[in-house]
C-alpha cells in the first residue's frame, strides 16, 4: 500500500484500508490453482488471455484473406480454403474474441466496481469460462478434419443441403451451443451480481456506466442467444435427422433461418459494442478529470439500444423477398437506434469540453474510438435506408461498415480498456511510448484497410469472393486495403509485445492502487487486488466514490499539517 506513483496521485496519501489476517490455504501447483479457480479475477484473466489468443488467430486469418485479395486473380488460397478462412475469421472474432473478451473484463471488474468480494455464482462463473474454451477447441479441432465454409452466418440451404462436403458445419453448431451457454450463464451471473451485491449506498443511480452497459448487454444475451441456439439445433436436425425446417425441397423455409439468425445476429452486434460504450464512458471522465456528462442519458441510452436492437433484425435481409411494409418498418426502427447512439457520442464529446485532458494511451484509443465509431455509425444509418442498402448490401461497403463498428469501435475500446485496467490487474503500467506507437499504427492501418473498402463496395465488389478479374478495376484499392491491414496487424502486435514485455520485467516499478486517479471502486484496493478484493467495503456516497475518498484524505492531511504548523 505504501508505494504510490508520484505523478498520478497526490504524494504519500492513500485511501484508508484496514489490514486483516488472511486465511492461509495449502499450497498447490500454480496450474492446479488456475484450472480449479473460482476467483472472478483469475477467471477474468483466463478469459482475457484466451480471447486475445483467438484474436491473434483471427487476425492471421484476416491477413490470409487480405493477401489473397491483394491482386486480381491471385492464387495464394484455393476457393475452398478461402471460404473456410472467412468462416473461421468471422466466427472467431465474434464468438471467441469479442464476446469472451468483454466477459473477461466484466468478470474482473464488475465485482470490483460494485464493491463485491466475488461474482454471485463463482462456480458457475468457472463453468462459463470452460464452456467457452470447449467451444473454441471443438471449433478449431475442425482444422484437422474439414473446417466449416458457409460463412459465420451459415445460411441455409448452403449449410444444410448436400453442398459442402465434410462436417465442419456441425462443429460450428456445437460452437454456438457451447459459447452460447457460456454467455447465458455469464449474463445471469453479471445481472445477479450487479443487482444484489452492490456496496452500501450504491443505488442504481450510482452504478458505474461499465456495469450499466453490461446489464443492458445481459438482457440482450438472455433474450436472443436462446433463439440462435434453437435455430442451429433445427439446422442440426435438418442436417442429420431428416427434419425440414429450412429445407425448401420438402416444405421448409430458407427465409425462416435468416429471420431466426438475425433476431440474434443484430443484438449480437450490440452485445459486442455495448461493453465498449461502457468502457469508454469509464475512461473519458478519468482522463478528462471531469465527471461524465449526462450520466443518466448514457445509462438510459444503453438500455434503449438494448430494447431497440431486438426490433431491427430484418435490415440484414433487405435484399430478400419481403413485403414493402415490413421493409419500411425495419428501416424506421433501424434509423431510430441512431438517436440513442448519437446521444452517447455527443455526451462523450461534451465530457471532454472544459476538462483538463491527460493524454495517456487509454485516452488516445478512446479518442480514436470516437472518430472511427462515429463514421461507422453514420454508414449504419445509410444502410438502414433499404433502397441504398440494396446497392451496397453484401459488398465491401458493408464489410467496411461493420469493421468500423466492431474493429474501430469495439477493438479500440478493448485497447483503451487494456491500457487503462492493466495496472490494476498486474500492478504494472504498460509502456506509454510503445502504446502510442501501437495506437497510431492501428489508427492509420485501420483507415488504410477499411476506408477504401467503402469505394470497392460502391463500385460493385461483393464480399466473400475469393478472387476477382483484373478487368474489374478493383486491384489498386484492394492493394491499398491489404497494405493497411498489415500496418494494422503490426499495431496490434506492438500492444501484445508491450503486454509480454511489461509482464516479463520482474523488477519493473509497481504502481499503487490508483495510478490514473480513477473514479470507481476498483481503484481503492491494491493492484493487483487480494483474493477477497476489499479489506473493508466502503460506503458509496456518489457516482465517483474514489474522488470522494481522495477529497476526504486530502482534507484530513491538510488538517494534520495545520495542527503540526500550529505546534
Amino acid at each position, binding site marked *: 500500500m505504501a508505494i504510490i506513483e508520484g505523478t498520478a496521485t497526490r504524494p504519500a496519501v492513500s485511501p484508508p484500508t484496514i489490514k486483516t489476517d488472511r486465511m492461509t490455504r495449502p499450497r498447490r501447483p500454480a496450474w492446479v490453482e488456475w484450472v480449479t479457480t473460482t476467483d472472478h479475477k483469475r477467471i477474468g484473466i483466463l478469459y482475457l488471455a484466451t480471447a486475445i489468443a483467438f484474436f491473434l488467430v483471427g487476425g492471421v486469418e484476416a491477413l490470409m484473406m487480405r493477401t489473397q485479395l491483394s491482386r486480381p486473380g491471385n492464387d495464394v488460397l484455393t*476457393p*475452398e480454403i478461402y*471460404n473456410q478462412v472467412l468462416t473461421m475469421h468471422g466466427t472467431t472474432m465474434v464468438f471467441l474474441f469479442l464476446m469472451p473478451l468483454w466477459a473477461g473484463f466484466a468478470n474482473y471488474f464488475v465485482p470490483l466496481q460494485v464493491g463485491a468480494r466475488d461474482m454471485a455464482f463463482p462456480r458457475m462463473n468457472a463453468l462459463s469460462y470452460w464452456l467457452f474454451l470447449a467451444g473454441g477447441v471443438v471449433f478449431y479441432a475442425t482444422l484437422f478434419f474439414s473446417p466449416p*465454409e458457409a*460463412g459465420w452466418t451459415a*445460411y441455409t*440451404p*448452403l449449410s444444410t*443441403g448436400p*453442398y459442402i462436403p465434410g462436417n465442419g458445419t456441425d462443429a460450428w453448431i456445437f460452437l454456438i451451443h457451447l459459447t452460447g451457454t457460456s454467455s447465458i450463464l455469464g449474463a445471469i451471473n453479471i445481472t445477479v451480481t450487479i443487482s444484489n451485491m452492490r456496496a452500501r449506498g450504491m443505488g442504481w443511480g450510482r452504478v458505474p456506466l461499465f456495469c450499466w452497459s453490461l446489464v443492458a448487454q445481459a438482457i440482450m444475451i438472455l433474450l436472443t442467444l436462446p433463439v440462435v441456439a434453437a435455430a442451429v439445433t433445427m439446422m442440426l436436425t435438418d442436417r442429420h435427422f431428416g427434419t425440414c425446417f429450412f429445407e*425448401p425441397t420438402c416444405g*421448409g423455409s*430458407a*427465409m425462416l433461418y435468416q429471420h431466426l439468425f438475425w433476431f440474434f445476429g443484430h443484438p449480437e452486434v450490440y452485445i459486442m459494442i455495448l461493453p465498449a460504450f461502457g468502457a469508454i464512458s469509464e475512461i473519458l471522465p478519468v482522463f478528462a*478529470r*471531469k*465527471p461524465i456528462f*449526462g450520466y*443518466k442519458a448514457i445509462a438510459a441510452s444503453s438500455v434503449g439500444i438494448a430494447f431497440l436492437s431486438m426490433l431491427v433484425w430484418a435490415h440484414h435481409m433487405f*435484399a430478400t*423477398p419481403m413485403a*414493402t411494409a415490413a421493409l419500411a418498418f425495419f*428501416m424506421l426502427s433501424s434509423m431510430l437506434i441512431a*438517436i440513442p447512439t*448519437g446521444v452517447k457520442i*455527443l*455526451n462523450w*464529446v*461534451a465530457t*471532454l*469540453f*472544459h*476538462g*483538463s*485532458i491527460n*493524454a495517456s494511451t487509454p485516452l488516445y484509443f478512446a*479518442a480514436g474510438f*470516437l*472518430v472511427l465509431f462515429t463514421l461507422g455509425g*453514420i*454508414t449504419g*444509418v445509410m444502410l438502414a*435506408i433499404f*433502397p*441504398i*442498402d*440494396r*446497392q*451496397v*448490401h*453484401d*459488398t465491401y461497403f458493408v464489410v467496411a461498415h461493420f469493421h468500423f463498428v466492431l474493429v474501430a469501435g469495439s477493438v479500440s475500446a478493448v485497447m483503451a480498456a487494456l491500457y487503462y485496467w492493466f495496472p490494476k490487474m498486474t500492478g504494472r503500467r504498460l509502456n506509454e511510448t510503445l502504446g502510442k506507437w501501437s495506437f497510431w499504427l492501428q489508427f492509420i492501418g485501420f483507415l488504410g484497410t477499411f476506408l477504401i473498402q467503402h*469505394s470497392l463496395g*460502391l*463500385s*460493385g465488389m*461483393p464480399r*466473400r*469472393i*475469393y478472387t476477382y478479374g483484373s478487368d474489374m478495376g478493383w486491384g489498386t484499392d484492394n492493394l491499398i486495403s491489404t497494405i493497411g491491414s498489415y500496418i494494422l496487424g503490426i499495431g496490434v502486435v506492438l500492444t501484445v509485445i508491450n503486454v509480454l514485455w511489461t509482464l516479463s520485467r520482474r523488477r519493473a516499478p509497481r504502481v499503487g492502487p490508483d495510478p490514473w486517479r480513477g473514479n470507481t471502486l476498483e481503484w481503492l484496493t491494491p493492484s493487483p487486488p487480494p483474493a477477497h478484493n476489499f479489506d473493508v467495503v466502503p460506503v458509496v456516497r456518489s457516482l465517483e466514490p474514489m474522488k470522494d475518498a481522495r477529497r476526504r484524505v486530502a482534507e484530513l492531511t491538510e488538517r494534520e499539517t495545520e495542527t503540526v504548523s500550529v505546534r
Partner: protein
Amino acid sequence: MAVGVTLAVAAPAYAGTLLPERGGSPNADRTASLYTVVLVLAGIVFVGVVAALGYALWRYHERRNKVAAQIHGHTRLEIGWTLAATALIVFLAVFSLTKLASIDDPDTAAASPAAVQAGIVKPGEGQSLNIDVVGMQYVWLYRYPGGAYSYTEMVAPTGVTVKLNITSQDVAHSWWIPKLGGKFDAIPGYTHQTWFRITKPGVYRGQCAELCGRNHANMLAQVRAVPPDEYVAWIQRQKQQLAAAEAARKRDAAKFESQQGAG
C-alpha cells in the same frame, strides 16, 4: 457545404468511389441520387462531431486548461441535441420514403415505338417484358417469353420496362447488376421481383452477391442491352439453336444410353 460542393463537382468523376454505380436504369440513378443527399448530410454530421472532438482535445489539454470544470450535465442542452438528432432522422426517413416508389415500382411509361413495332410488348402504358431469372451453382439461367432461354448473359431490349422474376433452384444467390439497380436475393422456394429499363445499348456486368459455395466468385452475370429488333432476331436464333440441339439430343439419346449401359 464544402462537402456538398466537392461532391457536386466530383460526382461524375468519382461515381464508384464516392457514389453507387449508375447510368444503366432509372432505379439505379434514383438510388444514387438518394445516396448523394444522405451522404452530404452524413458528411456534415461527421465533420461536425470530429471538429468538436478535435477542438476539445486541443483546447482542454491539461497544458492549456489546468483545472477541469466539474460539470455533470446540462439537461436543456441534452434534450436539445436529442431532439435535433430525432429531427434529422425523421427528415431522412420521410425523404427516403418519398423516393421509394420511384425506385421500387416498375416504370409504367409506354415502351419505345421500336419495341412496340418489333412486337415485344403491346402499345400503351404499364406494359413490360417478363424474364425469369434462376440462380444455380454457379450460373444464372434466364427464361424468356416464348420458350427461349440462355445462361450467364441476358439479352434485353432497350426502351422497354423489363420485369425480372428471380428464384433459385439450390442455395441462396443474389442477383445484382450494379448499374441496373439494387440486388435481389434468389432464394429457393421464393420468387423475388425487380425491374430495369435500359436506354443505352451496351453490356452491364454484375455477379452473384450472396455466398453460394466455393465458386461464388465466378458466378458472373451480365445483361446485354440491344435495340428491340435485334432482340427479336436474337430470340428467334436462340430458339432455332435450342430446337436443333434438342433434336440432336433426341437423335443421339439411344446411343448415349447404350454407351452408358456398356460402361
